[in-house]
């Protein structure tokens, strides 16, 4: 089993740890996306009894966004066998950065659906968008 544990604190503090799960995407208000920190990902839960999970600390500014998601989204595959993928997801996140978070998630789903071009999602997925507003 994989998972991300995240904690929102005061003044835009966002701490997270990953157990074999895609790290969150951090998009700054200007559209810049932080590169993925693969080194901070730990093993899936219950893989090793003594596994230690590193915490990553981010400090969000007003207008910054976080996207948490499961692999059913990035591994969605179209008829040609191409997966939606993290790069395409980051591009979509950037393209829709001016949308409200709710519209943003709707548009993300719409883009993933366009990529599938008529095929069905093979796996369930969860998307959570967070924006610092003040």
């Amino acid at each position, binding site marked *: 089993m*994989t998972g991300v544990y995240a904690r929102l604190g005061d003044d835009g503090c966002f701490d997270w740890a990953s157990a074999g799960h*895609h790290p969150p995407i951090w998009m700054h208000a200007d559209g810049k996306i932080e590169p993925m920190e693969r080194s901070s990902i730990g*093993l899936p839960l219950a893989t090793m009894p003594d596994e230690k999970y590193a915490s990553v600390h981010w400090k969000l500014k007003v207008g910054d966004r976080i996207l948490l998601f499961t*692999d059913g989204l990035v591994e969605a595959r179209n008829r040609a066998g191409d997966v939606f993928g993290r790069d395409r997801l980051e591009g979509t996140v950037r393209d829709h950065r001016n949308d409200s978070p709710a519209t943003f998630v709707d548009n993300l789903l719409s883009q993933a659906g366009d990529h599938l071009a008529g095929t069905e999602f093979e796996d369930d997925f969860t998307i959570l968008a967070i924006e610092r507003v003040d």
Partner: protein
Amino acid sequence: MLTATGPYFMCMPLGDGIRTVRFLHPDLRRQLDGASIKECTLYREFADQVLGELTSGDTVILNFGLVERFPTAFYQFLMKVREELRSRSVHLLLCGFSSDILEGLGVLQAERIFEITHTEEQAWYKAQVHDAVPRPSGVPTKA
């Protein structure tokens, strides 16, 4: 030199104590379906045709060169195979993953748990170093 072939994989010797298991289908999701991974068709076939043949000190190379779909259940399959092989002191190597699958394995930190090479030839060389056995003729050079 073919030792076992079934509908889902082919198991061949690559030298003394080294076997390669080549999965033969791009999509084995149905064969990975089961109440538990030990009960799925793929694992039962693997247990029947591969596990029983192994002895301590052997090496098994799993070649994913033809596999296009890698659901979570395939990772569970690998963890179960790893557990079984470790209990028999058998060395396990994985090879031939597509870039899409490698990306997913990277997020799972699979390289910390498994030895992974790009090609079967690289896996064979690793096995050779590990087992110090002579290279036989007819070893394939592509994953």
